[in-house]
């Protein structure tokens, strides 16, 4: 077996020569992109399409927010409003959140992090992108063709009998997109098990890989259930096969059981990879070994496991048996344990670290706070008594946005900035990105914190007016204001990241001084990832914050921070070339 005999953590950073041929410029033809088996290119394909869907979903979100600035609404009719919030939910859940971190960052990073040449099944990986595109096209087709008004949950009997909108087409799209997710999950699992570089034992894996593995397990076990459940609605609408029809003796609550059996674990599909990104960011920017590596790794698996035991907490008021409700409430509280383990361990990692407040770190610190609020308010909702009051209000909307946007989207943005030099070979403008990260935090809190209050006061979700309670208006206006700020802070990275593709300074192989196999190959990596398959001799987070802090101090005296030295060097070499 060909391998580098020396310790790669010491030598390979500087030893890897900058190759002129990388995965981006290996072949410029469109065909080479559309028929690629390269996991990095597939990650980029996902990035482009998912960003597009995120844009569409955000427009729907904006429409919802502007409608609610007035107690009686002022831009949407009630039916349109139903279609808009359904579109927002469906696009954001099925076409953005479930796909974003696993399929973009996960696809790009998993083989790089474990030292493999590619995913185990590159063609399956490409198939997953095509399935995603077909599914996305079906969903978009259904929405353009009149929309769907049943919400993203598709509760029967409304979706199966009464909805006159394009439920069938959109469900077909979700069904197909589900298979895209399954193929990605299979790839993650097999790649993690079988493709690790020599010496890359399970406990030397970066925590991102653990998180992606746990995500893969959840995808594999959950997605087929929702696929067949939604298929039953399609059967009911198209072939008249009565499966959940209440009028014939079928049970609509069974649909909710089966739907949430997947859709609760699905929120872990969204947040687990975000935990992985978070662990990487915190370790690198605190320049310190992650505190409690084993606990973070196993808490990912614990969340994946417990995630399958709590679906009933979405159904406390859906005529579920109270005995099962009690059990689900208890297990829902248990989920707090592995989540808290992670949060405490990240915080402990910061202690006595050599913290560098760069853009990804700002996102990561924001994540800790926002996810904690999102998680703790989840306890209110997991409690049987308070849930009766809070369910179906804006409190629940705020709760899951704190977890999904404050957690998953923040981590996605942080991870995107962190790995942007690796993905594109270019540096993004640091100062504007830093301010933008702060703007995301402000805009986000301004949008969703008022929703906790207004929800607690009784504002129901999915209502397009609240003329019965005009005192809610200030909160809604605050929320809309925040969403405008948030929208701005999503547009700005889109602009400067796109600009950096051509104008950005060229990145060195390891602009952050980070540890991990993905930083030991050039930026962007060659098509086969590594010129030689690396041999791993040490764990990934072997930082030395004390020495680095002293070096930083010495460098500050010279007015060149050491962590910028790589960046500065590459800029200088650029100037010299010109």
């Amino acid at each position, binding site marked *: 077996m060909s391998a580098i005999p020396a310790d790669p953590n010491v030598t390979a950073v500087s030893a890897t020569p900058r190759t002129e041929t990388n995965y981006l410029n290996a072949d410029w033809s469109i065909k080479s992109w559309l028929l690629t088996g390269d996991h990095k290119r597939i990650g980029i394909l996902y990035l482009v399409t998912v960003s597009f869907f995120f844009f569409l979903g955000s427009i729907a979100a904006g429409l919802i927010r502007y409608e609610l600035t007035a107690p009686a609404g002022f831009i949407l009719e009630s039916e349109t409003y139903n279609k808009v919030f359904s579109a927002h939910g469906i696009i954001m859940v099925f076409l953005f959140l479930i796909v974003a971190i696993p399929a973009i960052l996960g696809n790009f990073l998993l083989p790089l992090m474990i030292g493999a040449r590619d*995913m185990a099944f590159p063609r399956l990986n490409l198939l997953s992108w095509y399935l995603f595109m077909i599914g996305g096209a079906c969903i978009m087709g259904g929405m353009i063709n009149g929309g769907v008004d049943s919400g993203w949950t598709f509760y029967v009997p409304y979706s199966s009998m009464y909805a006159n909108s394009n439920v069938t087409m959109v469900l077909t799209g979700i069904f197909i997109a589900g298979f895209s997710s399954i193929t990605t*999950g299979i790839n993650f699992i097999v790649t993690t098990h079988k493709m690790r570089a020599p010496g890359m034992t399970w406990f030397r894996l970066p925590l991102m890989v653990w998180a992606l593995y746990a995500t893969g397990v959840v995808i594999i076990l959950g997605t087929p259930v929702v696929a067949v459940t939604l298929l039953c609605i399609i059967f009911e609408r198209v072939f008249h096969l009565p499966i959940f029809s209440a009028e014939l*003796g079928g049970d609509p609550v069974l649909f909710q059981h089966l739907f949430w059996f997947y859709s609760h674990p699905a929120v872990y599909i969204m947040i687990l990879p975000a935990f992985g990104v978070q662990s990487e960011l915190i370790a690198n920017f605190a320049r310190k070994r992650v505190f409690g590596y084993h606990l973070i790794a196993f808490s990912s698996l614990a969340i994946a496991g417990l995630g399958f035991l709590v679906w009933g907490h979405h159904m406390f008021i859906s005529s579920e048996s109270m005995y099962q409700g009690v059990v689900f409430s208890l297990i829902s509280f248990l989920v707090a344990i592995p989540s808290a383990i992670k949060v405490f361990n990240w915080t402990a990692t910061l202690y006595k670290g050599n913290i560098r407040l760069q853009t990804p770190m700002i996102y990561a610190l924001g994540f800790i706070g926002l996810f904690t609020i999102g998680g703790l308010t989840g306890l209110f909702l997991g409690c049987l008594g308070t849930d009766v009051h809070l369910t179906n209000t804006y409190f629940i909307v705020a709760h899951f946005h704190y977890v999904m946007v404050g957690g998953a989207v923040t981590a996605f943005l942080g991870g995107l900035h962190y790995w942007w030099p690796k993905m594109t070979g270019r540096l993004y403008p640091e100062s504007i990105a830093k301010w933008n990260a702060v703007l995301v935090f402000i805009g986000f809190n301004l949008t969703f914190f008022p929703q906790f209050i207004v929800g607690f006061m009784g504002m129901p979700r999915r209502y397009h007016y609240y003329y019965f309670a005009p005192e809610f208006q200030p909160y809604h206006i605050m929320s809309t204001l925040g969403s405008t700020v948030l929208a701005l802070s999503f547009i700005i990275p889109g602009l400067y990241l796109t600009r950096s593709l051509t104008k950005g300074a060229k990145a060195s192989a390891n602009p952050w001084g980070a540890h991990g196999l993905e930083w030991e190959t050039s930026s962007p990596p060659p098509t086969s990832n590594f010129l030689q398959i690396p041999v791993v001799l040490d764990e990934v987070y072997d930082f030395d914050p004390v020495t680095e802090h002293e070096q930083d101090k010495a460098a500050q005296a010279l007015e060149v921070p050491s962590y910028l030295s790589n960046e500065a060097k590459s800029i200088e070499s650029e100037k010299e070339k010109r």
Partner: protein
Amino acid sequence: MAAIASDHGHGHGHDEALHHQFEDMEQQNDSYIVGMWTFLVTEVMFFGALFLIYTLYRSMYQLDFYLAHKVLDTRMGMINTFVLLFSSFTVAMSVRFAQLQNRMGVLAMLGITQICAGTFMVIKYFEYQEKFGHHLYPGPGFGSSPSYLNGASPNFAQLYFGLYFGMTGLHGLHVLIGMIVIGYLMAKWWRNSPMVTKDYIPTELVGLYWHFVDLVWIFLFPLMYLMPKP
């Protein structure tokens, strides 16, 4: 590209079936087997949800399901089960022949499997046709020949037949997909493609899929055709 391509040329010289991302055949074979099993786990969950729905409704409406199921032809179901069990055996044999690189053996065994699958589908077709003729397909015309309901409540019988057509239909779809995949595999063997002749794994994966189809039917048959009297 040349510099990159040259460095992972190891092992390619003698193994045409080895893909570029793997080090050796053992890693590749292991990966494919594990990948197939993960896929089969998703299939288990896929059908599992339907079995769950069926279990709930049958426990709720035992008598009506029992009365409604009487119209099914147990003989045909039995024949179909025998056919599928036999085809499972032939597929297992074809994997064995693939391991021994016995091309004609594989082709013969897969051919018999195709015939079995075809027989299964034809029998299924006649069963479906009979049910349609008796107005037992759920929908507006359901139960317009009440004698075939055996006294079951038309509503609950409709639930039963909804599940019957849904589950056996999805199973039939899997059989059809299996036939297409086996046909593709046979074409590969017929053309002596190194993808299958140098490596028994593709045959093994198709075999696993086919056994899974058999597995679903093993549960479907007693649940749908052989209900005990409540």
